[in-house]
């Protein structure tokens, strides 16, 4: 079964880190990524540009409205994700707990809907 692990963290804090701390963090992410590739649980992953680059689109009654991202007020922003393959929720929680940002921010684990035809 597939789970999406959404990574929420404080991007302002992250931007304030000195370069060596950022490098150390990235190193931990690389190591984590390698470990789930090795265990066969890796399906996909991406880091997102900061939430200041986000755009919200809504279509209502045929009219499209486009606004700036809504996340300025919240403390933690969606910063990236891993799509993983896990046996069950306990297995997925185990993987999510090893994502480096789990220690500073939080990880939301969402099961992916499985279609019979897939």
């Amino acid at each position, binding site marked *: *079964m597939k789970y999406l692990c959404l990574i929420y963290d404080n991007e302002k804090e992250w931007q304030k880190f000195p370069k060596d701390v950022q490098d150390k963090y990235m190193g931990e992410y690389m190591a984590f990524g390698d470990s789930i590739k090795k265990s066969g649980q890796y399906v996909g992953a991406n880091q997102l540009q900061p939430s200041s680059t986000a755009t919200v689109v809504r279509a209502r009654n045929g009219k499209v409205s486009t606004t700036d991202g809504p996340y300025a007020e919240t403390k933690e922003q969606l910063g990236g994700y891993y799509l993983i393959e896990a046996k*069950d*929720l*306990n297995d997925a929680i185990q993987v999510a707990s090893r994502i480096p940002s789990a220690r500073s921010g939080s990880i939301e*684990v969402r*099961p992916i809907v499985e279609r019979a035809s897939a």
Partner: protein
Amino acid sequence: MEEDVAAHVRDKVDAIYRSESRRVLATLIRLLGDFDLAEEGLHDAFTAAVEQWGEKGIPANPRTWLISTGRFKAIDRLRRSEKFESADSAILDRLLATEMHEQSEEGVEDDRLRLIFTCCHPALSPDAQIALTLREVCGLTTEEVAHAFLTPAPTLAQRIVRAKGKIRDARIPYEIPSRPDLPERLDSVLHVIYLVFNEGYLASSGASLTRADLSSEAIRLGKLLMELLPEPEAMGLLALMLLHEARRRSRTTPSGEMILLEDQDRSLWDRRQIEEGVELVERALSSHRFGPYTLQAAIAAVHAEASSPSATDWAQIVGLYDVLLRAEPSPVIELNRAAAIAMRDGPEAGLALIDAILVRGDLVDYHLAHAARGDLCRRLGRVQEAISAYRRALELATQEPERRFLSRRLDELRLTSPR
């Protein structure tokens, strides 16, 4: 004559339902991989028992009969179901592939633990954990759970449906947690039992002070958990509940008014429950792996073993609160420690500590903090201060017997200070 047999079978089935239905359900959930299907299977199995046991006699092993009948009935239901979707056929394939083995005693008990850990999974909301545990593990009806928590039955039913939906869709596994996960997961189970007990011991709102049915349900759960998984904190929690429950009869007057610990008739305390609780505390403490529940139980044990309020070993109680506060820092524990200090060193010492907590901004909306403050001021003869503290407590209290108690205290104080 035939009617007699039918009545006898019904009685027997009723008795077996009471003693076995939760075990049968726990195993059916594992075999069928689905809560709703298992509940329907359980229901069908007992219906079949009433119909068939009269004619063919009661089987040698009713539990095994019920499990295998429930499983067949569930498979039957799936086959007959009109919307025979692909998801159902997947379940069916898996069901037919798994052979039905005779259930060993140990296997059945493991299923009960699986059910407890699944219902108390931390991925479910605390409300849902409690509702699901009382419904599935204890076998209370949705109406009973709703009534106990003063929640409308449809709200509670919805909560249970959502929780089962999450178990299915997020695939919360039906398993006993592995060793590294056990402490955290056990905490979650203990917390659910503790909340159920607390709601029964000191109902958070409403007309009566206690709800005996919830407390005894929590103690039953605690005993079950102890039997299945004798971890020190499970012992500690059971001890804590027994030691509190032992004082039930002395805590309220026949008309439902609350009586403080110091005014309780100690001859009404249940000695057998106290003995059982004290023994469990000692076992938990000697493990050296105990935690907050065991420490709270140890405090309750010191109270329970004192023949009178003045004979209470307050120094030991303060010492236990010190350890508890280190294990689990919390303003409520600080407040209780302050009350114990007041008993050991005098009201002034306790009052200074309570004021320090309130100045910090903690517990300012907690009625018991103001009630405790009022009591210490009263003892010190600071009547006006006591009155305003009790008044604040009364504004914040939501439970009728507590409100009446606070009003009585206020009336007494106003008499001593006529203005």
